[in-house]
């Protein structure tokens, strides 16, 4: 491909991903409110648009017209940088997730992902650590008590669960032998032997569970939402934010939820793989996108379900769950899976 084509492809993919994420956020917020309302025997938003679908748009417009208060003791530069620092990594992570089967335009094969990095998993982990900066910057630069407490808690929580998250991925890399998300999805095509069971990486059940739990904690969602425990520290790190500056944190949170769901689907649940029923074009690339979205939304539903069901953990429970349960279990699981995969691929060490 020439420079022109590469540039154009990249530009189209970026704009598409951006538009997709913004639209998705609107739907996700509505989806969460509706689902929680159902789970709690309420009705939920039903005025703006059909089934209240436009409620999020209305909220966004409201926030745009709201005053953005800048408290007195704020370090303005960092204070204004924090929402951006929250939003940008969330947008960037999504770029490596393949959302559908690659398709041809002429003789060119176009991946349905922003980009395919051979260090995909490292990239994801690196960017999700960057999210900590936004929280710490927001909390510290606010010059106020509760944001600071929330930020310190959040940073400790996020880095604790990030260690578990990374450890959970090691067996997966052992299993697939790559850190590129595209290849990880490709490996999951087909089925196990002659059975009808799809060859998804979810056979690494502990990895899947640990990764997903740590993902919930990474996004600071219930039951790990100590960061914004309103009964103790008001709004946590974004207490002093209002107007659209607050909306950016909100946006980042929902994009991150979808990111975690999408990455979990990609890594463990077969990504865009699913039955295409031999329907031929255009279904052989429309259906994979549908499967990907359906699986991701199912996981998002789990997010919401967990939030509606479980009470918030205490801080000491949170930390000891991370360090004393998840990390030892993932280390043990690494040992077990290494031995199993090693024996399977290389035979017994003494033969």
């Amino acid at each position, binding site marked *: 491909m020439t*420079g*022109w084509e*590469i*540039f154009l492809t*990249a*530009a189209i993919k*970026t704009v598409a*991903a951006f538009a997709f994420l913004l639209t998705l956020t609107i739907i996700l917020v509505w989806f969460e409110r509706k689902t929680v309302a159902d789970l709690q025997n309420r009705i939920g938003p039903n005025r703006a648009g059909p089934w209240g679908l436009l409620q999020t748009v209305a909220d966004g417009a409201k926030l745009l*017209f*709201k*005053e*953005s*208060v*800048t*408290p*007195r003791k704020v370090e303005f530069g960092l204070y*204004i940088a924090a*929402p*951006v620092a929250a*939003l940008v990594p969330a*947008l*960037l992570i999504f770029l490596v997730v393949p959302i559908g089967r690659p398709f041809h335009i002429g003789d060119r094969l176009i991946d349905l992902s*922003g*980009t*395919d*990095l*051979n260090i995909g998993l490292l990239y994801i982990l690196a960017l999700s650590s960057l999210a900590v900066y936004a929280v710490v910057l927001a909390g510290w630069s*606010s*010059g*106020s*008590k509760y944001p*600071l407490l929330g930020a310190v808690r959040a940073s*400790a929580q996020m*880095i604790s669960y990030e*260690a578990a998250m*990374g450890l959970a991925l*090691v067996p997966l*890399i*052992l299993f697939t*032998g*790559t850190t590129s998300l595209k290849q990880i999805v490709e490996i999951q095509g087909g089925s196990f032997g002659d059975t009808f069971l799809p060859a998804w990486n979810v056979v690494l059940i502990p990895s899947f569970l640990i990764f997903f739990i740590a993902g919930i904690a990474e996004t600071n969602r219930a039951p790990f939402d100590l960061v914004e425990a309103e009964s103790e520290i*008001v709004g946590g790190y974004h207490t002093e934010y209002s*107007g*659209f*500056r607050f909306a*950016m944190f909100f946006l980042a949170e929902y994009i991150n939820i979808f990111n975690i769901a999408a990455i979990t689907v990609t890594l463990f649940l077969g990504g865009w793989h699913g039955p295409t029923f031999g329907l031929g074009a255009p279904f052989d690339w429309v259906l994979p996108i549908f499967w990907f979205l359906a699986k991701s939304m199912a996981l998002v539903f789990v997010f919401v379900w967990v939030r509606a069901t479980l009470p918030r953990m205490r*801080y*000491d429970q949170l930390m*000891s769950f991370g*360090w*004393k349960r998840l*990390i030892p279990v993932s*280390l043990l699981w*690494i040992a077990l899976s*290494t*031995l199993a995969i*090693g024996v399977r*691929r*290389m035979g017994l*060490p003494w033969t």
Partner: protein
Amino acid sequence: MNLILATGFLVSRCEGSRVTLADYLPIGMMLVFGIGFATVIMWLSWRIAPNNPTPEKLAPYECGIVPLQEPVQRFPVKFYIVAMLFVIFDVELVFLFAWAVRFESFGWAGIGAMGIFVILLLETLVYVWKRGALDWNVARRGRNRRIVVDSLEDAA
């Protein structure tokens, strides 16, 4: 136009290797795009939203009362220990990832070496755990528990 020329340059420089810097082009674009979007929309919000600051509105949030003191500047040392532990485990992770991608070519010797490495780090975790650095519940820790329990018994 310059951007396009630069793209061509990147591609031509990386010809032959499987990974090109052009793979990172969408990431760079999204970076610019994200920052641009955030800047524009915050500017827009600043233009169209009202701005009526009052001294009370600008005070740091303290549930409606006048803040008496500055936010705390010092934190329990445990947060720092968590940070250090995180660094240890993250470094471990970097080595584990690099090894896991090609673990077959290192064979059982590689698995053994990695096992020793992981056990050493596990030992760190066990030591820190047993010394109580991971206990966030103050009353559960040895000496403090004694103090708490004693004071409770005194009160009783």
